């Protein structure tokens, strides 16, 4: 179940304010970092929807993001279509592809689902890698950013672009939160917890899973559009499984199933990476240590763990307040 608690809202707002300030007052490179965080955070949110709530851990979300980016680039840079319709086509492509993958893998679960999505992701990667007309592994340039001069926004200004990116992040979060709180979201959680029971209740679980994947594909597509417009150049790298792997790490690092956790995870991972790589080329090892430590410290991810501590503080507090008698065990102190 997903609840938009006060703590989650506060954390999200605080994160956005932090990112905005960092971009505004930090150096030029700070803006590059913030956009990198935004893209990864949106991708992670889309993954949290499937994995955290639906139990469908996907290793193809990077590929879906790539599909959206490529569709957008093909329509606008190669075929010369105007930018907004091209972006819509990009999103549509992401929705269609992820929906198909979700439908086709509806009977698989657990590690098998992961591997199946990996297979599709890699197929998409190979397709773009080998397409000479799309530049192959050298990639494709000539992409332009939206022209928002009509409303007074200069997209080529990196600060404006970053602010808009933050807006899209908020939008992605908001849409996902809304969906997860709705009946659709609750059904999805239900399928995750006990698929047979949901089937017995008459839910077409396969269709539901496909729809969930399709919606998460939409969100991932948003990340893809930002990625394409940020570097004005795309290459098949976006689609390699390691991109999806990084998103998965970020989701687990932040807190699976919290929706805010992925955002925090993205901020932590990217900042850590840049900070450590200033000192040494061997930053992978440090990140590895952090990941292991996060799991050993409780396994709920950084944000998830903080939330958990707050909740147990709070529930212990209420017990003292309401003078609950001893002998009633409080759930939740087990590791």
């Amino acid at each position: 179940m997903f609840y938009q608690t006060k703590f989650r809202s506060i954390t999200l707002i605080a994160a956005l304010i932090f990112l905005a300030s960092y971009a505004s007052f930090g150096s030029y490179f700070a803006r590059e970092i913030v956009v990198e965080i935004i893209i990864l955070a949106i991708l992670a949110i889309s993954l949290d929807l499937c994995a955290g709530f639906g139990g469908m851990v996907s290793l193809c979300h990077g590929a879906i993001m790539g599909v959206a980016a490529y569709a957008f680039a093909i329509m606008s840079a190669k075929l010369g279509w105007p930018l907004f319709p091209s972006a819509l086509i990009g999103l549509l492509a992401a929705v269609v592809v992820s929906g198909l993958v979700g439908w086709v893998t509806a009977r698989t679960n657990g590690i098998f689902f992961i591997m199946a999505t990996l297979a599709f992701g890699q197929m998409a990667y190979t397709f773009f890698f080998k397409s000479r007309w799309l530049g192959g592994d050298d990639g494709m340039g000539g992409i332009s950013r939206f022209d928002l001069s009509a409303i007074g926004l200069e997209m080529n200004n990196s600060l404006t672009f970053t602010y808009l990116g933050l807006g899209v992040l908020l939008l992605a979060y908001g849409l996902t939160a809304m969906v997860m709180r709705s009946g659709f979201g609750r059904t999805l959680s239900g399928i995750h917890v006990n698929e047979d029971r949901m089937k017995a209740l008459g839910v077409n679980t396969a269709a539901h899973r496909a729809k969930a994947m399709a919606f998460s594909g939409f969100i991932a597509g948003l990340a893809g559009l930002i990625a394409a417009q940020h570097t004005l150049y795309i290459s098949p790298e976006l689609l390699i499984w390691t991109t999806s792997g990084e998103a998965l790490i970020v989701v687990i690092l932040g807190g699976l199933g919290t929706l805010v956790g992925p955002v925090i995870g993205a901020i932590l991972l990217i900042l850590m990476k840049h900070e450590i790589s200033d000192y040494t080329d061997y930053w992978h090892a440090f990140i590895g240590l952090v990941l292991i430590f996060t799991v050993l410290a409780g396994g709920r991810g950084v944000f998830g763990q903080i939330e958990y501590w707050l909740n147990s503080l709070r529930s212990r507090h209420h017990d003292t307040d309401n003078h609950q008698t001893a002998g009633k065990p409080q759930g939740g102190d087990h590791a």
Partner: protein
Amino acid sequence: MDLSFWILQFLNAMQYSMLLFLLSIGLTVIFGLLHFVNLAHASLYMMGAYIGISVAALTGSFWAAFFLAPVIVTLIGAMLYFTLIDRMRTAGPMNQVLVTFGLIFIFLDLVRMGWGDIALGLDGPQSLSGTTRFLGVDYPAYRLFIIALGLGVMTTMWFILSRTQIGVMIRASVENTNMAAAMGINVSTLFFLVFCFGCALAGLAGVAAAPILSATTTMGITILIPTLIVVVIGGLGSLEGAIAGSIIIGFMETFGAVMIPSFSAVLTYVLLAVVLIWRPQGLIPARG
């Protein structure tokens, strides 16, 4: 294409299959028995190769490397088991993925620090250099050795699993861990032994592959996906599944490369997708 061409390619396919088998059997038994997603298995494979190279450089003998590297890798695995893996057994797949990804990163940089970024080669033993006449063709002796090694491990595993006490215990624990424990099987010792054995196989695969594939910092990550595919296609936790999976993937990739090279890259993934859609539990899963 005459017969000798097809025999050569058949041997190529067998050799690749055996390499995949050595890696996947360790991974699948760990999966099946400990329910542990050990992505770091590929890192142990990498360590086997690099440690083998160092031992060979120190002692001047390939065979010393061949026997010592798996032992050292097993020690590393045992250490990991006591510090991390044992705790993580009940932690759920997500946390296991995170922890083993963390281990992959750490091993990657450890290798970079210890052996540098340049790819390193290992010379096979003198006794196995050059080609020998086999099935009417001249085939590299060392590759024949790998085929023999793989078949040997296959037979040994089959024997252990179906004919020995410990094999029965392993199979019972894979099918139903709680019941096996209730029947008096010392499941936690079994877990440890099987884990160590899996690590030994990974190290062995690494040092055995090094003369052909050389040691690079990304060799673990590169072989991780084909190994996972073999394990998943074959079915988790079963020896037959690992055999079937490695032979299918090995032959498909080899003959795919021979006959339809432009598509051979995707072939494995297409097969994976097809198998998972048709038989979501894999071809020969250990549990029905």
